[in-house]
């Protein structure tokens, strides 16, 4: 019997007490557990989606006419529909992102909504006019953004699922690479303290509070979702706690800045928008740098140089980033966050992804069972990096 499929109130309370983390992260994870024993995912007909959208827009945009509702491919974590709303002869295309009953990452729509609105003007992001944070209108929490055109990979490129392993030619890299680094620099330079981000807890600079909060977040997810024990994951969690570095400068951390999570114009190779802000938080910029530099997102060229996300040579990536931000790069912190990120990536695909499929909870269960193979790559990275650190006495 798998008690995790029918979480008791006692177990939920115990997890919340054992792993204190941000308020809205706790809210999203607690909701997931409370709903887990409920129904599996079942597709909503387009007619029903159109009905839901019409009901919503009757109050959001009186006189607006909803039409052309279509499902969008991609989106490993959230269901996506594009649709048009016409008002007085002008039509605008939008995208609805709706949570499935459980997702490969369980996040709070209010966080995504607030950060995308705040980042608008700093980096290209879709405008986000509406959020249904509690699922009042769409049955499950949802977000509505403007539709932005563009592609995630070159038309001729091959890649695995979710944009992993996307290939870019030298010419494409020359066009996209500099923009890619500049956008990450701008995200980290963004003055988040002046923005409306009350869904986020602020870490105290000069302390490890924010880092421990992130470890608790993901340690809790592992505990909630893993199907079977993996000793390496506990070893890693304990090592991360013992070696947590203080956050010297708190910035926005996008948390999934990589190829596959931005759109570009396939003719001009101009990046048109940065996507997938749902895991964003306030933390250490080294966490983002190490995430983007993960081995699984890039490749080694003929000269043995690592090409970050298939776009920029690693040395150039860090040099350009430092030029743009003026932020120092602390190699010890990069090494630390490389371990943390390999650990988190493993939790996402091996624990949560599989937990979704056990309950039949997502619109992408078949993709989630496929992408679990990537967890073996991230776990290998985790083992290799931890071994190196432990050999050096950390």
């Amino acid at each position, binding site marked *: 019997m798998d008690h995790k499929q029918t979480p008791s109130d006692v177990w939920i309370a115990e997890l919340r007490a054992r792993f204190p983390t941000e308020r809205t992260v706790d809210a999203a994870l607690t909701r997931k557990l409370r709903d887990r024993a409920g129904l599996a*995912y*079942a*597709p909503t007909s387009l007619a029903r989606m159109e009905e839901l959208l019409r009901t919503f827009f009757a109050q959001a945009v009186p006189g607006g006419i909803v039409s052309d509702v279509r499902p969008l491919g991609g989106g490993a974590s959230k269901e996506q529909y594009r649709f048009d709303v016409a008002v007085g002869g002008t039509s605008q295309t939008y995208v609805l992102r709706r949570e499935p009953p459980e997702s490969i990452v369980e996040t709070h729509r209010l966080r995504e909504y607030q950060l995308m609105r705040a980042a608008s003007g700093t980096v290209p992001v879709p405008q986000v006019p509406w959020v249904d944070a509690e699922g009042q209108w769409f049955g499950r929490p949802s977000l509505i953004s403007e539709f932005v055109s563009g592609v995630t990979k070159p038309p001729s490129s091959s890649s*695995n699922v979710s944009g*992993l*392993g996307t290939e870019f030619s030298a010419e494409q890299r020359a066009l996209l690479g500099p923009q890619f680094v500049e956008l990450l620099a701008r995200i980290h330079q963004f003055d988040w303290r002046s923005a409306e981000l009350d869904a986020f807890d602020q870490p105290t600079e000069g302390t490890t509070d924010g880092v421990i909060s992130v470890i608790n977040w993901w340690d809790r997810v592992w505990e909630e979702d893993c*199907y*079977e*024990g*993996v*000793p*390496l*994951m*506990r*070893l890693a*969690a*304990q*090592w991360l706690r013992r070696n947590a570095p203080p956050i010297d400068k708190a910035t926005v951390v996008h948390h999934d800045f990589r190829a596959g999570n931005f759109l570009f114009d396939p003719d001009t190779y101009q990046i048109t928008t940065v996507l997938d802000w749902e895991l964003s938080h306030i933390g250490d910029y080294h966490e983002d740098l190490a995430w983007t530099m993960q*081995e*699984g997102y890039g*490749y*080694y060229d003929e000269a043995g140089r690592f090409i970050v996300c298939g776009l920029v040579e690693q040395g150039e990536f860090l040099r350009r980033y430092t030029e743009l931000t003026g932020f120092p790069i602390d190699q010890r912190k990069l090494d630390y966050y490389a371990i943390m990120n390999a650990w988190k990536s493993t939790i996402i695909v*091996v624990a949560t992804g*599989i937990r979704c*499929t*056990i309950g*039949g909870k997502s*619109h992408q*269960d*078949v993709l*989630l*069972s*496929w*992408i*679990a*193979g*990537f967890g*073996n*790559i991230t*776990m*290998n990275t985790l*083992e290799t990096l*931890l*071994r190196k650190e*432990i050999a050096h006495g950390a």
Partner: protein
Amino acid sequence: MVPDTCLRLRTCLKALDDIVTPALAPDAGFAHEQLALIKKSLQLAIDQIPYEYVFMVRDAQDHLVLARDLAPYVESGGALEARLAGSAGVIAALLPAALPDLPELKQRLRTLKQDVEDTVDGLCTDRTGTELNAIERLVLDHSARRIEMERAWTIATGFEIDPSAIPPVVELIYRTADTPAENATPQTRP
């Protein structure tokens, strides 16, 4: 091993039900017939996989019994007697001592894995210095072996940068160099 093959196939069935079936034109009769057979075949595989090995063992046992019962009727010293004795002997040597209960093994293995994980968690919390270092190395060495096996098992998912660096899974499964002693049981510190 997560996901196991049955769970993987269940996700395929669900995708066919949720996404593919509604997308087929209602008048695509042949496609609907094929889809129905594909779904039934997948369900059959899901039902059979947990028992396929023991089904074969049972098959072998039944044929051994028949071979034994037929033996008195076979001409002594003939070619058939030698063939029958030879192949029966080989099969008898390959068979496990008892019919394994694979679903039970799967469930118990899961419990053991959780107990090992909790043990590592506890030891890493309250041990320090050389003792902690020794525990860490044990876990890392174990992990390296398991990860290599899992990577080989799922190599067809296409995430390996250099697939040729991973040995075939069959080679790893039957590799004897690091096969643990049978019935190894933990001896705790007094």
